[in-house]
């Protein structure tokens, strides 16, 4: 904004008379006004960020409070009304987690399930993102293949688990493939839609002002598609864990899913809940990591827009 003002400065014109769209003479008065407004702008930004921090802090406090109330309520109900067989209790669950941690069982099972989920997630994410982009960008091919992919997507995946057992055995490959299949469709369809929604006029304009194909692809298309890929990855992450765990339910010799299934057959409710708790923590942790990665890779999304640079210069 300021460079526009300085380019158009004219010593004769002492007063700002036009808005951003017109030629705005950057007179010394205007430049002085812009400088005078710096502290005000900083003050506003400080107040805004302080307000945002306070609000986020309040949210966190409320979340923690809610968690404490739920946990305490659960313990009280389980103990007072004797529902431990059905619902276990936070105390028993914590005890079970401690036993697992101490015996090393938890880490062994966690390693198995995490590796299955992580590899499945990467495989499904890469394939889903690549194919989704390709078929979304190449409209003709995408139109031909879309109904088949939708049909595959609507198949109940749980029905595929016994087939995967036959094709891939009961080892980790079975669970990796199952997780990858679940993640693939999440990422594929979001990327597919995203690629289709890229503004073609914008791309043409970019070419008009001299961008070559590579620049169009790397400066416009890929960044836009990346937003959708990350949306798909966020949706797909829990499914990678679900895929690994469901695969372990069907057949496994170790892993969190195997442990949960064994516990449910033994009517060991604390162990079932302990396993579910660990899975929730993994999913939340994974989503946090993904959010951080997204913020880093898609930094450009957070660049302030023109409106934020508006120093308040009146158009009149």
């Amino acid at each position, binding site marked *: 904004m300021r460079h526009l003002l300085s380019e158009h400065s004219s010593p004769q014109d002492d007063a700002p008379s036009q808005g951003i769209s017109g030629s705005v003479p950057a007179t010394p008065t205007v430049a002085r006004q812009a400088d005078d407004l710096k502290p005000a702008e900083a003050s506003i930004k400080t107040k805004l960020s302080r307000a945002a921090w306070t609000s986020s802090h309040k949210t966190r406090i409320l979340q923690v409070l809610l968690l404490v109330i739920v946990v305490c309520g659960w313990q009280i109900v389980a103990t007072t009304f004797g529902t431990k067989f059905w619902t276990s209790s936070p105390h028993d669950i914590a005890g079970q987690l401690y036993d697992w941690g101490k015996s090393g069982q938890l880490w062994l099972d966690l390693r198995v399930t995490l590796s299955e989920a992580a590899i499945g997630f990467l495989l499904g994410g890469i394939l889903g993102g690549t194919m989704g982009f390709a078929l979304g960008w190449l409209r003709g091919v995408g139109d031909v293949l879309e109904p088949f992919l939708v049909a595959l997507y609507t198949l109940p995946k749980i029905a595929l688990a016994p087939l995967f057992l036959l094709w891939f055995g009961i080892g980790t490959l079975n669970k990796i493939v199952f997780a990858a299949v679940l993640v693939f469709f999440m990422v594929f369809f979001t990327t597919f839609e995203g690629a289709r929604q890229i503004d073609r006029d914008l791309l043409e304009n970019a070419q008009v002002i001299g961008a070559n194909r590579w620049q169009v692809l790397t400066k416009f298309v890929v960044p836009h598609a990346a937003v959708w890929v990350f949306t798909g990855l966020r949706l797909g992450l829990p499914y990678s864990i679900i895929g690994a765990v469901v695969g372990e339910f069907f057949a496994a010799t170790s892993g969190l899913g195997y442990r949960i299934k064994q516990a449910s057959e033994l*009517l060991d409710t604390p162990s079932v809940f302990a396993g579910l708790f660990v899975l929730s923590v993994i999913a939340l942790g994974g989503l946090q990591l993904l959010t951080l990665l997204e913020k880093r890779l898609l930094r450009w999304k957070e660049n302030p827009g023109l409106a934020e640079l508006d120093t308040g210069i009146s158009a009149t």
Partner: protein
Amino acid sequence: MIESTFILKRRRYVWAAVLALAVTVLAACGGENGGTATQSPSGAAQSGTAPVDVKFGVPGTSFALVRLLLANSTGVFKDNGINANLIQVSSGAQAVTSLVSGDVDVANAGIADALTARAKGQDLKVIASVYPGPAGILVLNKSVANKLGVKANASVANRVKALNGLTIATPSATSSYTSMLNGVAAKAGIQVKLTYLDQTAMPAAVKTGAIDGFLGASPYPEITVSAGSGVVWLSGPKGEFPADVSSTATSATLTTGAYAKAHPEVIKRIIAAYQEAGKMVASGDKRVTTALKQLYPQLDSGVLSAAVSTNKSAWSASPLVTEAGVQHEIDLLKSGSANVSGINNVKAKDLLLG
């Protein structure tokens, strides 16, 4: 005028919706109560003649359940005043879960499954044994067996030792097959990797090499051997599992203490039906052969005859369970790797009907 007409119409719609909802709720309640054809169980107990609806949770159709399946398909249950509704579940553990949650009246599972529930404070009772003794047959993948360096007709001790490190499937963590395998492994000082599969999936899993072997009841071992993909390694019906690690009853019919107390007549009828089915088998009644052919169409006559002669004595044995038998199951569970918490507090007589 228009407004009052609208209000009247709206009232009609509301009343129609309320009426439809009431009819739906009544129909649903009527469905859950089993319709109008039969009396309630307590009514039947008093009259002693009217048939009673009984929901059975049944884990599959293996030979371990033949006595129950025969009683159902040959009309023995009906003759004894029971309208049996067999609900298929994937394992004995699931059958017990269905029983505990109130979805079925009686469940078929191993006594180990009942003990596990008992250890968690659930009041379960054993009505009768459906298959006394071990029904499980250990089958290995043919190529795995060939690589072990031990022949299928070697001594039991050598065959057991050869299982070290193999991945063997059983129906569930609490099944009697699991207890048996754990007991055998512990005795021989070997480690076996356990995985849990529906028995119907075991033949295919062995064929594709997904597992090294499985321990299950007929006809699944026979199906695997007939397909050329497996060999029988150890046979429970032939007594190749040591007695001290063999189950008292591979399959038993269980119920809750509350149901047993409320419906003593139903319990008697079930036991009577099992005794009658056992007599049919012992006497070589032709209905048994006909029923078995219908239940197991995938087995050819020769294989079926051989399987029948192996299992005949178990099918016709007394279905009554003793305190010593239940105590044996408790000891098996304690020595196994299932680690059932609370099992030390369970007494054998708690599972028996008074």
